[in-house]
């Protein structure tokens, strides 16, 4: 066999390995939409609870479940729409690529992202229950960021950096709870939109053609 033939074989091998170690079909458009839904959710909640969310902090979850109904409705709406969009648009990307996906890899990716997020979710519920509202946004930002960081190694490497940005925003929000609302919106809204646009222009646009 000649060197050229070896090289050709190695390139074919590289393609197979890429497909099996990374999950490269994440939809950038769905990421942009996630940012839009988060921002709309924040605007709606602020409309209901007041500019500084002052109505939000008047009860703990323990004292009055009803006071938090709008919060949970908005939150589940945002999360539901985001997961739904991400699922369908990513699925359609996979179909466009016509490549087999590694189910084991997909499972690993989802588990790596979800575990930190679920831990954060439990902490948030405890904080609501006890009325410790100060650090709510910080918990969301930090644990979501850790989820992206741990899942990022199976997706695009820059997702790890985005994860760290979320963690940093979370830490600032922990130190300065009065900025929480803005930091949360910058993170879940703006960062998602910027990053989604980047995925779209960098990896996804040529798929549509």
């Amino acid at each position, binding site marked *: 066999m000649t*060197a050229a033939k070896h090289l050709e074989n*190695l390139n*074919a*091998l590289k393609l197979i*390995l890429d*497909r099996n170690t990374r999950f490269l079909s994440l939809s950038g458009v769905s990421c942009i939409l996630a940012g839009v839904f988060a921002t709309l959710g924040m605007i709606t909640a602020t409309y209901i609870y007041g500019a500084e969310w002052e109505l939000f902090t008047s009860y703990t979850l323990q004292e009055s479940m009803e006071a938090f109904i709008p919060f949970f409705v908005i939150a589940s709406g945002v999360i539901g729409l985001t997961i739904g969009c991400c699922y369908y648009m990513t699925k359609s990307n996979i179909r466009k690529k016509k490549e*087999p996906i*590694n189910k*084991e890899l997909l499972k690993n990716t989802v588990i790596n992202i979800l575990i930190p997020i679920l831990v954060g979710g439990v902490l948030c519920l405890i904080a609501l229950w006890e009325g410790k509202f100060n650090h709510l946004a910080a918990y969301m930002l930090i644990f979501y960021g850790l989820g992206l960081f741990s899942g990022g190694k199976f997706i695009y490497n820059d997702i790890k950096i985005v994860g760290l940005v979320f963690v940093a925003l979370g830490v600032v929000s922990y130190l300065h709870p009065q900025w929480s609302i803005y930091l949360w919106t910058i993170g879940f809204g703006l960062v998602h939109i910027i990053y989604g646009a980047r995925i779209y222009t960098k990896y996804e646009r040529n798929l549509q053609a």
Partner: protein
Amino acid sequence: MIEGLNKAFESRLRLGIMGLLMVNDYISFADMKENLGATDGNIASHTTALEKMKYLAVKKEFVNKKPLTSYSITRLGRQAFQNHLMALETIIKSAK
């Protein structure tokens, strides 16, 4: 003529099989077939040959009453494949 190249990994399909095994703890026959776009017979004969050389291990089990064959790489296989890749790298570098 060239040192370090392993005859066992000469075909492209075997290169693909070993590559898949390097990055997956286990991979089923069906997933391997889908990934490499090869026929049943081709995969079967190459995996059998690689198994004989003890480069891969076969696990057969029943999942929902259906037989499921999956493969994993052995330590010997990993070592041999790494040596082969290093040898390939040397050849390609010297050809440039």
